[in-house]
């Protein structure tokens, strides 16, 4: 765990030494339920030239918050996972079908799914997030109403579908037909938005490991999403987090589910290729 100290401030005109705190416990290992070994630190994917090593957001949290993610009985997200189990079995819509009517046992059929999303959908000719795929199932297969993009019901279903992929490496495809969305997401990632003129990279690439006010900056990875936050005691989706981060730059945000945020999610997810799927994780 060397090299966690931030690189220099972008293009600083002179060198500044930072006395930044790194992780709470540099050697902490995340093993869930005593059996799922998570990769929380690994070599950055080759497309990500600015970083040598990528870290899960778990690494940057306090010992207490970290511990909550180590056992599903302590992880408050599992209350919502249980609710989603019921939703999985529930018949809804004009086709009178449930999710399980088509997909059977979620722990079997959804294994590996979370690891490869967002993903190009050939038939639809678009990049789909897990959320847009779930809603496509609801409207096209079930004849049911779509769920709100960042609604609690949707976040819970995303969490449930993530469970069977826990521990598998994030492996989002960035080439082929997804390439242009990926490039768009990358451009957004480096754009300095709002009156504070801050990009995602300013905080999460140039300053991870540093404190900004009371917050210990992580690399802003999405491998743990949806995350249960102690702060608002519910599951939070990646797009809700993006929205908050953009708003905090004193900018006009984008909407959850917008093409911009779908592109951004694809790009951010690809920065985490190689980390384990951790969702649903716990954050402060």
């Amino acid at each position, binding site marked *: 765990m060397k090299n966690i100290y931030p690189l220099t401030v972008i293009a600083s005109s002179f060198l500044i030494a930072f006395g930044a705190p790194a992780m709470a416990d540099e050697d902490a290992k995340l093993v869930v339920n005593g059996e799922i070994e998570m990769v929380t630190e690994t070599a950055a994917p080759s497309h990500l030239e600015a970083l040598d090593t990528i870290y899960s957001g778990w690494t940057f949290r306090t010992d207490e918050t970290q511990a909550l993610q180590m056992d599903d009985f302590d992880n408050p997200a599992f209350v919502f996972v249980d609710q989603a189990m019921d939703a999985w079995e529930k018949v809804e819509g004009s086709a009178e079908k449930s999710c399980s009517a088509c997909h059977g046992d979620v722990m079997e059929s959804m294994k590996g799914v979370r690891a490869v999303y967002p993903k190009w959908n050939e038939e639809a000719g678009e990049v789909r997030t897990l959320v847009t795929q779930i809603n496509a199932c609801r409207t096209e297969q079930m004849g049911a109403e779509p769920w709100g993009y960042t609604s609690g019901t949707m976040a819970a279903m995303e969490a449930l579908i993530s469970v069977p992929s826990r521990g598998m490496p994030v492996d989002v495809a960035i080439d082929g037909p997804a390439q242009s969305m990926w490039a768009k997401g990358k451009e957004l990632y480096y*754009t300095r938005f*709002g009156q504070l003129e801050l990009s995602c990279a300013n905080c999460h690439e140039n300053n991870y490991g540093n404190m900004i006010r009371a917050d210990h900056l992580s690399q802003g990875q999405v491998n743990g999403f949806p995350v249960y936050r102690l702060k608002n005691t519910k599951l939070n989706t990646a797009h809700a987090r993006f929205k908050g981060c953009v708003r905090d730059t004193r900018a006009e*945000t984008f909407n959850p589910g917008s093409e911009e945020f779908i592109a951004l999610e694809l790009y951010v997810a690809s920065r985490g290729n190689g980390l384990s799927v951790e969702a649903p994780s716990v954050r402060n």
Partner: protein
Amino acid sequence: MKTLNLAAAAAFGLIATMATADGVVAPADVVYEDGAVEQSLTGAPGNPANGPDIMNKGAGNCIACHEVSALADLPFQGTVGPSLDGAGSRWSEAQLRGIVANAKEMFYESMMPSFYKTSGYIRPGDEFTGKAGSEPLPPMLSAEEIEDVVAFLMTMKDE
């Protein structure tokens, strides 16, 4: 008023920062030389006693990114920027004014926000609401607040 000043400046061949009648220099009229701003933005010296408030939860929120030992009683000081201890010894008053007003004039592509700038933003918002704002936005610090912070920074000398 601005036109009159411009005319006067042209007539006398001045290239100095221009102030309005009440002595306040508007954000668009600030003249930076090598990142520094010679002239007080209010035409008067600032009050260092107001500095700590502005740098804390006030409009500046400087300690979100900077540590300041003199304000050690204020919790949660950030480490994104360098410690500001001794800033008054490292920099002249004009340089500090320039850095606080628009740090990007001194430090190329700095992460430090430009506190006395009102336009030229990408997707400018209405403060922290997430809604669109329309330019010119109010500057994040007023001319008085900048002078007060600069006066405070000038008191921060090396031992």
